């Protein structure tokens, strides 16, 4: 009797878990569905190759915004990745001091700071001193947003490298810095790459900090010291406008952005698993 009872309870619990999972996935699925449905109509070759049309006219594309997003992400990476990885190395190899603990705490806090606050920081630091809005400021803001994620991921993954590997390398008479660089980092590299990809995915869709750093523009621009367009900003601008055509384009842009984030996430997963299998 007790056995049947236990089985019943087991099924009930399992059913509850499955239901909860489904409920949790619904928002994700519906967002994807909605964005896809709304945006697929606006996708066309023009969308990717044309510049925005003058206000009021229909047609035109988002070439500048797409390129702009790529440039901004590139700037963010060039700033965030080296700094983040180095900070992660410091924390994992030397971070058992008071200073290390402070840095770690700071990184954790930073990952919770609202992105708009980071934007204001970049505004104050770069926009005001350069006296102009620029891609540099936007890239900087995005880089700062990436920093805590990359730092903590790097640190965690480096700590996962077993001490026995470090010992083995040290016992071969290899100096500590070389051990970190050539053995520890290399072993953790696939995991760090995954972390970086996830950080990029997060940052690619940020809107608020770009509003007053890169500002956004509907003109073609790739100069780093000038305002630059970005998909996220463009979506905002178009969505709050009154033009239907712009609404359509905004949806299409949203679709492109979501697709980008999805591709990055899936790519990260594949790299991570591929590394796991080769062990």
């Amino acid at each position, binding site marked *: 009797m007790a056995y049947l009872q236990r089985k019943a309870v087991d099924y009930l619990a399992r059913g509850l878990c499955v239901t909860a999972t489904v409920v949790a996935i619904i928002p994700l699925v519906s967002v994807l569905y909605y964005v896809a449905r709304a945006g697929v109509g606006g996708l066309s070759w023009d969308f990717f190759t044309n510049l925005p049309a003058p206000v009021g006219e229909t047609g035109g594309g988002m070439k500048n915004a797409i390129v702009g997003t790529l440039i901004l992400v590139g700037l963010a990476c060039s700033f965030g990745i080296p700094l983040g990885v180095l900070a992660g190395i410091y924390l994992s190899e030397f971070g058992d001091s008071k200073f290390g603990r402070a840095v770690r705490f700071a990184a954790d806090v930073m990952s919770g700071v609202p992105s708009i606050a980071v934007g204001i920081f970049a505004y104050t630091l770069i926009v005001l001193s350069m006296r102009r809005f620029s891609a540099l400021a936007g890239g900087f803001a995005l880089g700062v947003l990436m920093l805590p994620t990359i730092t903590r991921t790097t640190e965690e993954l480096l700590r996962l490298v077993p001490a026995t*590997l470090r*010992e083995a390398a*040290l*016992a*071969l*008479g*290899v100096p500590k810095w070389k051990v970190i660089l050539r*053995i520890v980092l290399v*072993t953790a590299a696939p995991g760090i790459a995954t972390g970086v990809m996830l950080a990029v995915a997060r940052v690619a869709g940020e809107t608020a900090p770009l509003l007053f750093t890169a500002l956004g523009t509907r003109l073609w621009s790739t100069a780093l010291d000038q305002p630059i367009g970005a998909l996220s900003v463009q979506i905002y601008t178009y969505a709050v406008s009154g033009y239907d055509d712009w609404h359509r384009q905004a949806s299409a842009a949203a679709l492109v952005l979501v697709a980008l984030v999805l591709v990055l996430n899936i790519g990260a997963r594949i790299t991570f698993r591929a590394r796991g299998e080769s*062990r």
Partner: protein
Amino acid sequence: MSTARFRQSRPMQSVGRGSGEQRATEMSDANEKMRAEGLRLYFGKFAAIKGVTLPIVAEKVTAIIGPSGCGKSTFIRSLNRMHELVPGANIEGRVLLDGADIYAPGMDPVRLRRRVGMVFQKPNPFPTMSIRENVLAGLRLNRIPFGDAHDVAERVLKKVALWDEVKDVLDRSGASLSGGQQQRLCIARAIALEPEVLLMDEPCSALDPIATAKVEELIHELADRYTIAIVTHSMQQAARVSDYTAFFYLGELVEYSDTNSLFTKPNDSRTEDYITGRFG
């Protein structure tokens, strides 16, 4: 018929007296490669090693035995300054390698470790490197020129009797081998640097009996060219592979002797108790 006398029977006494340090000093007429003198090692306030004087005879195998926590692993790590990885470790006394103190102010621990190699308890080949790369890792990372990679790898892998088993799969990851093979690969990696001394910290603890036998066979062969010091918790293994044995207890050297004597008639009653299983 009187069988009552067995109730009075008194068990064997141990053989003689004489401290481990005395014997260690007496036996130093043999050719010494390394020598610890008055070695004291502290982790913070805790004294892990309390004044040890012990020779490591050249081109012979010295085994170090003792119960858990007796300081044997700590001692062997002090022979190539690996204990310095633990924060709060400090050391008094000297450790001589060919007569020169390795703790003297000018001595570089990194260079020392190229002369005094180490093999660990858990086999630890570099997982991101292939078998061939693992063997050559020490040479490559230290920028030591070595001629043809394939020849060197073959020579070293033959020395550890691993060549026949891996010669067709040299590009596979080092971690794809069995435990015993991995450990022999680690030994190969260590001796590729042609160290003068090879330290082994319980190298067979994680291996099955057959792999253990193969590694012990390897130790026999290597002993002709290298000086070997091995920490082991298996007394039978110490008896099998070593020429000299040192018994540590609570951070002190209790007895040091040639292996045959120590296992048939030890001097100190603590040694007797430990090796016959009368501890605790």
